[in-house]
């Protein structure tokens, strides 16, 4: 896998490079600002991009805008956005084009190396990796007559993991239950929330769940 890193903090940038190289992933470029990143992207299409949100010169949201721009240059270019904080509105913007290959994680998630690499791989394959904090915020938004209230605690756990982008097998592993049990939970969740039946699988399922959670969230 060929990956581009855009991160202005030198320590983090070097750390990420080292971490990816150790895992046998090729880092084709590591830049410290959005302009250099876009210049590189114009001439090359990597398999995935790991991207910081806040970068020079203005230290605002240029990373996020560069990510969206890069996906206009190369449609469905897998992008994993890292940030010191997560905003549900950014998640919604990243997912807006509906083609998948999007990740949005807190920087410290890199520390759980295996899960981070798994997330990067999922994103590179067109899947989704959403930070649990984003999902937690979406799920804790109180609404009038909240349909989520009808879910059992276990079903809520399953829903959250689904929204983060995990497939059934991984969810079963993480919750230490059988694949069959997860399948049953998912059927119940889809029925209770009135979501279309679980035909799409993979990324489309995640999008449906996120769209559901993010409804009214713009």
């Amino acid at each position, binding site marked *: 896998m060929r990956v581009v890193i855009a991160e202005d903090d030198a320590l983090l940038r070097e750390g990420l490079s080292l971490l990816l190289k150790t895992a046998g992933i090729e880092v084709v470029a590591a830049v410290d600002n959005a302009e250099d990143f876009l210049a590189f992207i114009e001439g090359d299409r990597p398999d995935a991009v790991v991207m910081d949100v806040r970068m020079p010169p203005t230290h605002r*949201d240029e990373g996020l805008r560069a990510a969206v721009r890069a996906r206009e240059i190369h449609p469905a270019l897998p992008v994993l956005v890292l940030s010191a904080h997560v905003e549900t509105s950014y998640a919604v913007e990243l997912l807006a084009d509906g083609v998948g290959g999007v990740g949005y994680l807190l920087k410290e998630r890199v520390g759980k190396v295996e899960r981070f690499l798994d997330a990067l791989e999922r994103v590179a394959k067109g899947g989704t990796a959403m930070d649990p904090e984003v999902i937690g915020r979406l799920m804790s938004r109180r609404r*009038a007559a909240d349909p989520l209230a009808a879910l059992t605690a276990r079903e809520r756990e399953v829903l959250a993991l689904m929204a983060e982008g995990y497939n059934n097998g991984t969810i079963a592993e993480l919750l230490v239950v059988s694949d069959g049990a997860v399948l049953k939970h998912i059927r119940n969740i889809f029925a209770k929330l009135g979501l279309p039946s679980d035909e799409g699988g993979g990324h489309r399922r995640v999008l449906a769940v996120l769209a559901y959670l993010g409804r009214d969230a*713009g």
Partner: protein
Amino acid sequence: MGRWIRGSASTTTRVGWNTGVVTTRLRECWSAVRYLAVGAGTSLLSIFALAGLFAVLLLCAVGVGIPALAPAIRLSRWPVAADRRRAARRLGEAIPEPYRDGSPLKDPATRRDLAWLAIHAATGLFIGSLAIGLPLGAVQQVVTAFVWPAVPGGIEASLGIMVNSWPQAGLAVLSAVAMLAATLLLMPRLARRQARTAQRLLAPAPGVVLADRVAELTATRAAALEAHGAELRRIERDLHDGTQARIAAVVLQLGIAGQLYDRDPATVRDLLVKAQDTATDALAELRTVVRSIYPPLLSERGLAGAVRALGERSPVPVTVTVEYETGRPAAVEAAAYFVVAETLANVTKHADASEVDVSLGGTTGVLRLEIRDDGRGGADETRGSGLAGIRRRAEAFDGTMSLTSPPGGPTVLRVELPCGS
């Protein structure tokens, strides 16, 4: 009169006199006469007021009037208030009341009131009589000039003119013209001067206005400092009890791991995992603290973007209207952000609303916020909701907050924050 209007353009401009001007002049004069005539009435009241105050002072001299002094001064404010209102109406400018709370004896406005009472008592009645007398006198002269032949021995008109011959009648008409001219020329000026004098004396003295403003700013500044101090203490506590303690734990865990590295690799592995978890918790707490100081979204998206995100996050549907260019002082934008956040939280908790409108606007000098919900209304600032906090936040920036919330709604909260330019 028509001839004047039909005259050439140059004639019209040179003479500058047509029916429009005449009616305006007459109307002005009539309103001035009325103003001065009512002024004669208030002048009479002023005389009574001064006489009453004098009587109370005399009683003070014999030692019994002192308790009556303050009420007497308060009573004397009544005719003064009438003149203040009249002058404000005449000049078309608001004249605020200058009085302070507390004893009227110590109020600097009392001395100015007394000055006005004295001036008005001395001049108002006389000027008012002129205003009534001059036009009436003119009418009398003209009537006399025409009816004298019917009266044997003639009639004595005003100004001691004995009308018993046609030349004398002519003199009476001339004097009538002079009286009318005096009315037309003099009365608007006198009315204006009387109103201006009232305005000068009955509005708060310039020094007093400044002093009040200084007192207000001192109070809000003290409150702002107090709030700022409380905020700093809260941040310090959050960092000290949370983040700092956890990072210390991480250092400790790593230290122990270093000690055990050769002897007990299994325990070291556990310690490293624990240290990582603890550091992750510290980061989560740090994020919460950072959000409470200055929301990162404000830096990244500006106030408009951050407020929109607040709206999206709210359980009650929110429409955000922005007529606002970003780039005001960061502290002002942060205050505005927290006002919106607190208000939306209030609406969610208490208002039972189905929609909220947030509008963000203003000029370069002031940032304006309006938050309107269609909930049940009846929001009360005094009943310990977040509203008092919002007012304090606004006042810390020398801003204002106003709230209307009739039972049954809608509730409208307006906040204005000066941007210090």
